[in-house]
């Protein structure tokens, strides 16, 4: 069964049609990469998957997005949706508080108060995000003192702390150096066993390295979606070929 089924999805910002008849089926425990030039709708679609477009004025959505068969724009509680579908952004955005409190923030808002339970969640999440060894002796220190790469892994730990099913990542390494980037990529590959991951990236080598499926977007449409190896070795659509080989435009 699809983790996400996106059917006939259209999204308008006022009169501008940012997504056009998008059909996509995201499989569980796989990494799906969204690629495409700036303004093609890939980040818009990502945000739509946990309803982060809800607050944007004049944003209208038609079509269907099903999470495990359930319509996320139906009766589903938005807070529960966001618990199940976590988000990691382009720029690391830790809260200005301790490392511990950053990770414990989500579980606390969902009602977990016991120290032991929170300790366990914090340790497990930091371990899953491959940053535990680097921060275990300074959990009470301010998270803003961490390096960019560490901050991003902390943000991943924060997303994991509420035990989501899906992790959305919007260019999670574009602000990081190559070493931090490779740590995040390794981590993403580790995480796919437990989570469904959707990653927006401008780095096509990154998409080729880590994703199982790739979807190519252009002007709000999904031009092509398929197995990453096939898409990068024998794209079916000339527009995909032109984009991935750097001959676009």
């Amino acid at each position, binding site marked *: 069964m699809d983790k996400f089924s996106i059917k006939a999805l259209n999204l308008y910002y006022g009169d501008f049609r940012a997504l056009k008849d998008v059909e996509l089926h995201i499989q569980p425990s796989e990494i799906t990469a969204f690629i495409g030039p700036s303004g093609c709708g890939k980040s818009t679609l990502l945000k739509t998957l946990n309803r982060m477009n809800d607050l944007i004025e004049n944003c209208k959505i038609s079509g269907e997005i099903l999470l495990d068969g359930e319509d996320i724009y139906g009766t589903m509680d938005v807070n529960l949706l966001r618990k199940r579908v976590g988000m990691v952004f382009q720029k690391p955005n830790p809260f200005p508080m301790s490392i511990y409190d950053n990770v414990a923030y989500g579980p606390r808002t969902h009602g977990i108060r016991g120290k032991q339970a929170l300790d366990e969640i914090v340790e497990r999440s930091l371990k899953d995000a491959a940053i535990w060894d680097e921060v275990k002796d300074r959990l009470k220190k301010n998270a803003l003192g961490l390096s960019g790469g560490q901050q991003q892994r902390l943000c991943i730990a924060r997303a994991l702390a509420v035990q989501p099913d899906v992790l959305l990542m919007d260019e999670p390494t574009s602000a990081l150096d190559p070493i931090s980037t490779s740590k995040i990529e390794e981590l993403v590959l580790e995480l796919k066993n437990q989570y469904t991951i959707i990653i927006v990236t401008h780095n*096509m*080598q990154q998409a*080729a390295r880590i994703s199982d499926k790739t979807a190519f977007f252009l002007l709000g449409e999904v031009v092509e979606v398929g197995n990453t*190896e*096939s898409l*990068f*070795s*024998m*794209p079916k659509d000339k527009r995909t*070929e032109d984009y*991935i*080989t*750097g*001959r*676009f*435009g």
Partner: protein
Amino acid sequence: MRTHFEEQLERLNHELIDMGALCEDAISACTKELLDPDGTELGAARIYERDIDQKEREIETLCLRLLLQQQPVARDLRLISAAMKMISDMERIGDQASDIEEITQYIHNNTDLKSRLHINEMAKATIEMVTDAVDSFVKKDIALARSVMDYDDIVDDLFRNIKEELIRMISDGDNRGELFLDLLMIAKYFERIGDHAVNIAEWVEYSITGSHPKLGGI
């Protein structure tokens, strides 16, 4: 867009065509010496072989540089990986043409025998296969590439014919054993050149379609 990359790919294309042309020249030279020896082409295949080896190294270096610097994907990746496979077969064709030339020197005085056997047809068939394999690459012509693969059966049949003809002559009491072995070796080299032409054609198909006739897609 990616002008420098395009120029490098264009250069790779030209280098492959040049290497293919050298292979054709090498086979033509050794065939001329074999079928119509007048000494004008003596030693030419050996020189072509050295040129082919040199060309192989140049193309290899170019391909490795392209992989390193450009991280090619899609048709670019297929072209470069196919090129790296094709040049190995071309290099073997050069070696085998040179080997044929070497043996040819020992059988100069037996033109009657050569014309009685199917050596002539075999030489012509393999030159055609190599020419068509290179042409299919130049023109991105998948039908031509497939015709090279099909033609291999004809060359294989010709090799079997020659073998049977030689066996018959031996059983009829002809005792020129060394000569027969040399001719069989020449026929075998031609048959192998045909196989290499087939390999080249298969990689041409891969570079066009993304699917190798024997190995399938990636």
